[in-house]
């Protein structure tokens, strides 16, 4: 498969890299513009009237711009955006903490033990990657109902944490294997227990992998739509940023003075964080992925 496709990539993409530096830059600038146009439209349209959005989508003349629609979206009775931020941030933090607390120790055991059953355990966890969460949530509804956790924050956080386990354990176990076992043996000689050894010796060394997972989990929890929509449901009165956007936007999808300001408010926090931390995010993702 790759044998057919990859050399073509090489001829198309690799040549300009060497022969024409200016061509490469020009190509990347054109691509960047294409990547940024929707974001530009999102930002400027949030400050315009319906008529101006449609007639002059790209223009940015000061007399067209108004903050009135943004203010209206901020105070939308269908969707309290500030509460949405708070609820979603709470979920992001809980899932990240719980995910590391659960996946860390089990990955340590898997990485340090050579018995067959621990390899089977790793396979069991990794197999979870192949289960589409959008489909899994259906039977999970009935599992949560049985446990009395349907429509509750703990129920949602536990399910969302479960979804992070397969990839976390895969990455952490792979990463811990690159950390010399002699370090924990030295700690064991000094009388430290397994838990202590893991949290005080191994865990600090696996920071790159943890950073990678925290970044990925933050994106996936903040942006998740189907799970909060189904597990928390409109009945619970708990809206995340995405389910709130859905409630606020889906009925008015052609009233762009509602759509654009709401979407802008929904993406702003995570986008601002990303832009401020961009170097750490991208290098954090690469660092964890290289070793794992």
């Amino acid at each position: 498969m790759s044998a057919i496709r990859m050399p073509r990539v090489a001829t198309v993409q690799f040549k300009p890299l060497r022969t024409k530096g200016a061509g490469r830059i020009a190509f990347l600038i054109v691509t960047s513009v294409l990547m940024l146009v929707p974001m530009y439209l999102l930002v400027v349209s949030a400050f315009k009237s319906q008529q101006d959005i449609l007639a002059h989508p790209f223009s940015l003349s000061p007399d067209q711009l108004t903050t009135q629609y943004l203010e209206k979206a901020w105070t939308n009775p269908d969707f309290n955006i500030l509460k949405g931020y708070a609820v979603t941030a709470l979920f992001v933090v809980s899932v990240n903490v719980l995910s590391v607390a659960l996946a860390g120790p089990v990955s340590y055991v898997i990485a340090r033990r050579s018995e067959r059953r621990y390899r089977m355990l790793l396979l069991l966890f990794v197999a979870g990657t192949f289960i589409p969460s959008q489909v899994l949530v259906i039977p999970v509804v009935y599992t949560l109902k049985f446990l009395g956790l349907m429509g509750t924050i703990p129920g949602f956080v536990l399910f969302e944490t479960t979804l992070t386990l397969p990839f976390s354990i895969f990455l952490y176990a792979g990463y811990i294997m690159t950390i010399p076992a002699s370090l924990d043996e030295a700690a064991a000689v000094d009388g430290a227990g397994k838990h202590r050894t893991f949290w005080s010796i191994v865990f600090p060394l696996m920071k790159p992998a943890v950073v990678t997972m925290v970044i990925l989990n933050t994106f996936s929890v903040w942006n998740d739509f189907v799970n909060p929509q189904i597990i928390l449901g409109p009945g619970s009165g708990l809206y995340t940023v995405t389910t709130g956007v859905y409630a606020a936007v889906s009925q008015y999808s052609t009233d762009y003075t509602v759509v654009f300001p709401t979407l802008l408010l929904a993406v702003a926090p995570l986008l601002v964080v990303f832009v401020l931390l961009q170097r750490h995010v991208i290098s954090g993702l690469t660092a964890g992925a290289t070793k794992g």
Partner: protein
Amino acid sequence: MRARLTTLSMVGPALVLFVVMLVVPVCLSVYLSLTDWNGYSANPVVVGLRNYLDLTKSEEAIRAGWVTLVIAAVGTVLLSVLGLGFALLVNGASRLNALFRVILFYPHVLSALVVGFLWSAVLGTSGVVNGWLTTRGAEVLPFLSNPHWALASLIGVLVWAGFGVNVVLYLAGLQTVSKDLLESARIDGASARQTFRNVTLPALAPVVTVNLVLSLVTLLKTYDLVVSLTGGGPAGSTQTAAYLILWDSFHNNALGFGSAQSVVLMIVTAGLALTVARLRSRADQGVKG
């Protein structure tokens, strides 16, 4: 004994949660797929394989299956090719490259739901592009209102939003390419293309596999974007398997039938992912041998 308890305390919590929230629900799906349950009646009646038989006769489900496979196949190829291509282009350590990397990656920070609403406002019949065309007296383009255009738009938006992740994964892989080998290839006078084919690409083999499998698994469960970009339309032409499964299970109260589709989707996902991984590992051995 104490050592055993310690191990258990490290493995137990994660394993229990995984079993309760993932293994049990998957088994429940398999069981429900063999019943006619509607979601609220007291006792599901076991009907054997009837749901699976119905599935083979359901035009809607078969079409959703094909739509999903087209999205997964076309999308995976585009994501991998663009991912590797752009990773090579922005691999250098310059500030400009760092900026390009951020621009290519940023859509991943937006939720698929928001991306879909945003692009439907841009591409819709009364959207920004068509509004702009109309005021200039041009014809409206059916980005989301013609079945073929809509599917193409959906794949295009998926790729726009997702290939930055592949770029980052390939960039990670490029860092593992041996500097010594690249250096000696240069000294031996190898061309850029020869170096790429004989040094870079073999070193990237595991990353290529990870990219293909991740893209495939992600695309096979496409759902959020369908909700916000096309709503499955026009006339069901962009309904994916996940979309139809949730629709059948919760709106049509056909939980048994929905579960049968779920089981098929899970098997297809695992089967395709493992097949790709196996083909890739055979190809790697072919390269080495």
